[in-house]
């Protein structure tokens, strides 16, 4: 099916609501739209900023492969992935995924799948800055474990 596939890796800020509306208009006809937006937490004011490093070239390639898998696995009208790199302020949108489908179960499952794979298989690394200095965010075992549920199908 002629699903919309839009992947962007960028330093520039983006407006999640405006992107969701533009995506909904682009896939018009689909009844169900799911979005996930990841925001920089302020950790009760402890976090002063975040920096995201990525691997140019591989990033786009990895995200496109993950999005393609989602499109093969569920009945989707479209997939949107936007992921920022560089410095980000507390409250800023780090990334978003949006999925559109005729039925909500497909849109939800594909969005969760995309998030689980992006978190652990796309080459991004987060470094958080606070009063105590800057530190690389460690990968969580739960994120790696989250991939298991998609291996059964």
């Amino acid at each position, binding site marked *: 099916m002629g699903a919309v596939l839009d992947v962007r890796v960028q330093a520039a800020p983006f407006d999640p609501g405006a992107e969701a509306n533009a995506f909904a208009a682009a896939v018009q006809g689909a009844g169900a739209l799911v979005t996930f937006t*990841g925001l920089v937490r302020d950790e009760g004011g402890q976090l002063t900023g975040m920096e*995201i*490093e*990525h*691997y140019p*070239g*591989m990033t786009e*390639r*990895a995200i496109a492969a993950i999005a393609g898998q989602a499109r093969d696995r569920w009945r989707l009208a479209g997939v949107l992935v936007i*992921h920022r790199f560089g410095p980000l302020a507390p409250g800023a949108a*780090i*990334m978003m995924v949006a999925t559109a489908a005729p039925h909500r179960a497909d849109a939800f499952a594909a969005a969760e799948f995309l*998030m689980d794979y*992006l*978190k*652990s*298989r*796309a*080459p*991004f*690394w*987060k*470094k958080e800055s606070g009063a105590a200095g800057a530190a*690389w*965010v*460690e*990968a969580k075992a739960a994120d*790696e474990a989250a991939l298991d549920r998609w291996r059964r199908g």
Partner: protein
Amino acid sequence: MTTLDVLYFAWVRERIGLPRERVTTAAPTVAALVDELSAREPRYAAAFADRRALRVALDQDLADFDAPLAGVREVAFFPPMTGG
């Protein structure tokens, strides 16, 4: 002997002190290349000390440490990803 672009990201880059370099090597596998680099200087040995904490990509695809380097042009070392 072959010449590779070797890339480092996140704390691997910080420990080694550079983002990329050209390496001429006869190492047949990723593991052999890691051994060779680790023998160079303490900063490499420090970066590669715990291989379970490292990931490797060959020509921008995730690979294992026992993967062969034949035909590969770009090798990247980095910690587990934390995007999303």
